[in-house]
């Protein structure tokens, strides 16, 4: 390379790197995971009205599923015959946005015990993404049920799904006040 060219290329490279270094210091999104919780969870009222309200507020949740509104269904109808037992409540978590799609879970809480975690929506930006989700979801659910918290291991190969799953789960647990 001739001298002039090397100087031009060198200066241009140094400028580009320095500028992007400076710009990268204050990332626009959560730098680690790129996962953001756009829809805060429903209040602990265990009804569905608030959730749909939440999804309305989140402008970018166009992918948020319609299953939303069904999540607050009266799941306790069968347990009415046993009044002694605490009624299971279903609480939706917030919608966590990732670049591979949204993730939202709903938990079923009986007393202060998480008895079920259902995925309302999982990362689905591509067929591959769906595969990863299908693979990761059962693992994440099992972990969540056994740990009874959102402090669960990431599933490798499904970092984004795991991160978003954790966040949505955490918001649901927070909302359930358990």
């Amino acid at each position, binding site marked *: *390379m*001739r001298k002039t*060219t090397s100087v031009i*290329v060198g200066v*241009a*490279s140094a400028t*580009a*790197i320095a*500028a*992007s*270094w*400076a*710009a*990268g*210091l*204050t*990332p*626009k*999104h959560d*730098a*680690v995971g*790129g996962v953001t919780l756009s829809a805060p969870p429903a209040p602990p009222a265990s009804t569905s009205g608030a959730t749909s309200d939440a999804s309305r507020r989140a402008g970018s949740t166009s992918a948020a599923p319609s299953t939303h509104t069904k999540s607050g269904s009266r799941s306790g109808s069968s347990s009415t015959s046993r009044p002694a037992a605490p009624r299971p409540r279903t609480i939706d978590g917030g919608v966590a946005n990732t*670049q591979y799609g949204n993730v939202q879970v709903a938990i079923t809480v009986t007393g202060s015990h998480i008895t079920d975690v259902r995925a309302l929506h999982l990362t689905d930006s591509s067929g*591959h*993404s769906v595969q*990863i989700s299908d*693979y990761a979801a059962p693992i994440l659910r099992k972990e969540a049920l056994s740990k009874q918290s959102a402090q669960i*291991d*990431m*599933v*490798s*190969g*499904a*970092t*984004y799904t795991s991160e978003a799953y954790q966040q949505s789960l955490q918001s649901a647990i927070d909302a359930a006040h358990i």
Partner: protein
Amino acid sequence: MTSRNAARPRPNERVRRALRRGVEFRRWRHRVADLLEALAIGTLMLVVAQFLLGGGSHDLLSGDAGARLTAIGRLTGLVAMDLLLLQLVLAARVPWVDRVYGMDRALKAHRVLGRVTVPLVLVHVGTIVVGYAIGDGRTGVFGSLRELLKMVTGGGDLLLAALSTAALVAITGTSVQIARRRMSYEWWHVVHLTAYAATVLAIPHELSLGSDFTASAWTRAYWWTLWVVVAASVLWWRLLLPVVRSTRHGLRVTEVVEESDGVWSVVMRGRHLDRLEVRAGQFFNWRFVTPRLLLAAHPWSLSAAPDGRTLRITIRGLGDHSSAIANLRPGTYVLVEGPYGAFTTEARVRRKVLLLAAGIGVTPVRALLEELVTERHALPGDVTIVYRANDPSQLPLHDELEALVELADHHLATLVGPPVPGSSLPEGVGGNGSDAERLRRLVPDLAQHEVYLCGPPQWMSLVHQAVRRAGVPGPHIHDERFGW
């Protein structure tokens, strides 16, 4: 050979035109070299800048140990992928790369990059595994190993990436072995071809997990462009063009001649050879269609200036393959990849030419001399050829050199004698002193020559040094590193 006339004839029009073309070619070569190097550096800078812009600098500086390690892993992975693609381009036999740098230098750059790329891949794997392990609350060596196991067995993409890493490590290992001559060329070659698979196998995990590859439509477009361009280059120049050329020209052996002890010339004929763009000093990778020779392609230089009807190579029987050449039957089909190499008179800008050859390295030098003589691109007496051999029985093509030199009143110095450690010349030739002084005595006006040298690697470095010390500037020294 020091018949210097006081009044030299002015260079005639043919010579002047040849030298002017040299000046123009050098100008073109500078421009293309600048462009290629700027592009290569530019891709690297873009990749790094994109990583930093996406919060890379933030991740590197702040965050817990796991996040930092993961950031280092992401950066090394990105840079390694970019370098891997550059390596593929360097080995893809792209004509511009070949004309500007020569295949030998392109492949040397390929090797040097390989020494950086593979360690980067290992750093990438190591930091990502440990970073994820910390993120999952696993610590220590055992924790990292468990994490690695979980990652590799977890999803399909990381298993492919692990295979890719293994292939790259195997390639490095075999390349070290072949440098030490502990492995056959064929085995090395087979292992080396897995580099294409390794690159492709690395792509799925970049797309599914590597957020830096898919951060925006622009980055996705950028990487896909790189992949497609590199794949197309490899496919066309490395694979299809040789097939097209081989079929088009249909080269066949016409005769095999023994030149001296264990040295044979193979003459080949083919269709439309006048339309094959090849210059004296270049080489092809040759593949003779016989059961024994088909699998190995060997780089051999043309030992005669291409005349549009025939091609000739001259080979010394070293390996068993080379000696099988002696038994080639006329009519045998020949497949070629090439022509390659920048060891040509294309960049010559000086009237006087010094050709230095040792051993079988005489072959391209013989072709260059023939071109200079038959094309009358040098004035009588302006070409000096120095032919070094250890033994008088090892002077293949010497008669032809003599005949060519005589045609145009050029000079031939045949230097025969056992090798002297640390010197490129035989004992006593050119008097006493350093090689540079002795060469200056052998070749008057040495510093004013355009110098071409070809021979065994150690000999070439000695000559290169001596010629430099004798006052020839680097840009006027041309060499061809023989062998793979």
